[in-house]
């Protein structure tokens, strides 16, 4: 079976975010970019499926500007077989991304699509569930374990109360939590090899879907700052503050 893995290019998670002074968004010029961390986990899971003989081929896909080719090369260097860039300069919202991915699924023909549970820029946590709805496939979200057998996957997922296990019949959509696996780093020989792997570029506008934004961003602001605090010298001082100044403990 083929596995399709959508990967998004985002600001590296270590970078301190700066809001633009005109409140139009956050600064992305000259900022280190990387693959969304959840998507690295998704690629890793697909590679392990191939290594275990469950999958035959891993295809990475990204929707974004030309620069997203870098992210796809990273996926190829990790070990993906092929990549597809759905190119657009527009900022595409999760609903639009899911519509474009729906087309990509029709083209590639995977039996499993593994996405990250959320993109760490928009923090939407929507695309996988939306794609599953469009395909009318089962969805296994926030996965911490996935075991494939007999056209099914036993999927453990992180909930607010603990861990839940579902049985999903394939084809299915899975979204990853960070604890699903630890992604590998691409080594130099694989980075070299990745340069020769196929990377197809398709124009998003040619895919016959309406991915125009439904949300208008009116402004983006810095969050409220906290008042600076104080370093105390002893546990007794702390208890005094909490009990008598803040009155938050009895």
């Amino acid at each position, binding site marked *: 079976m083929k596995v399709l893995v959508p990967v998004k290019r985002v600001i590296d998670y270590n970078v*301190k975010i700066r809001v633009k002074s005109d409140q139009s968004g956050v600064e992305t010029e000259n900022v280190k970019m990387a693959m969304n961390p959840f998507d690295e986990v998704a690629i890793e899971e697909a590679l392990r499926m191939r290594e275990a003989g469950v999958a035959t081929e891993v295809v990475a896909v990204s929707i974004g500007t030309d620069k997203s080719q870098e992210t796809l090369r990273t996926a190829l260097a990790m070990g993906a077989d092929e990549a597809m860039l759905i190119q657009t300069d527009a900022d595409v919202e999760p*609903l639009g991304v899911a519509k474009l991915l729906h087309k990509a699924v029709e083209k590639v023909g995977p039996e499993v699509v593994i996405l990250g549970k959320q993109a760490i820029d928009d923090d939407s946590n929507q695309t996988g*569930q939306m794609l599953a709805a469009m395909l009318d496939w089962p969805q296994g979200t926030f996965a911490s374990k996935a075991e494939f057998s007999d056209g099914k996957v036993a999927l453990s997922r992180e909930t607010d109360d*603990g861990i839940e*296990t579902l*049985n999903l019949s394939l084809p299915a959509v899975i979204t990853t939590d960070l*604890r699903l696996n630890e992604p590998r780093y691409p080594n130099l020989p694989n980075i070299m090899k990745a340069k020769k792997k196929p990377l197809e570029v398709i124009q998003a506008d040619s895919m016959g879907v309406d991915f125009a934004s439904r949300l208008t961003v009116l402004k*983006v602001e810095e969050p409220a700052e906290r008042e600076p605090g*104080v370093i105390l010298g002893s546990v007794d001082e702390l208890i005094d503050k909490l009990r008598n100044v803040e009155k938050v403990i009895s």
Partner: protein
Amino acid sequence: MSVLVVAEHNNSELNAMTLSAVSAASQLGDSDIHLLVAGENCGDVAKQAAAVAGVTKVFHAESAGLAHAIGENVAATVGSIAGDYSHILATATASGKNWMPRLAAQLDVQQISDITAVESADTFVRPIYAGNAMATVQSSDATKLITVRSTSFEAAADTGGSASVESVDAAGDFAGTQFVSEEVGESDRPDLVSAKVVVSGGRGMGSEENFKILEPLAEKLGAAIGASRAAVDAGYAPNELQVGQTGKVVAPDVYIAFGISGAIQHLAGMKESKVIVAVNTDEDAPIFQVASYGLVMDLFDVIPQLQEAL
């Protein structure tokens, strides 16, 4: 204009986060607020829902396929009554995050995730980049689908309402998804998200054994226990205790962080707490930049002293 709020519950009790979603709904303008309680043997929850202040009608859907809030089934049942609602709201919990985008796609709506403020009936504030920026967004969709960050909205009163309860049919079960089992963390502690006091441990706790020293302290303070991702990843604490960008968002009266460095992904889940206390041996740890009170001390000295003095 009417607004549908989908209740979060465990089939016996209404989750308090739903009350925050109701209060977000009440800020949408002059609107009728309806609550949907979908589950199995959840009649008690429907009764509790009917008593919530401001709610005018409760829909009650029963089926075995709704017992564990399977996302495919919840989305279908909500979809079957979505009708003319101007807004459909849910809690930004693991459950709400799971089913609502599925319904949004079915209705061709761009969902608005995790709102922290209502500006008007079509304009909302939501955190992006782990809360390092706040975006104000205006929706052009006819129906707005929204998940609500409960810590940003005062809970509606759970008494005083007298809504009618109406039964509705659950949608048929989605064949491709079967519930197998659930491992629920047992605890008689207060719920992490609604607790007034949270004591939280990070990698600095050092081991699963050591993490347990937070328990008697939490007991004394009537506190819930939280954890950083590093503590969960290392196996010191179960996943449901994780606080942060990809865990739970909490805003207690006081949050006490032991051996947590204060990565932005952790701060995303606790920096709205009223008072933050940080205990860390490293005076340069970023947690001190958000802490109201800091102790540059060894947590293994501080915890017994606190225990003694309280």
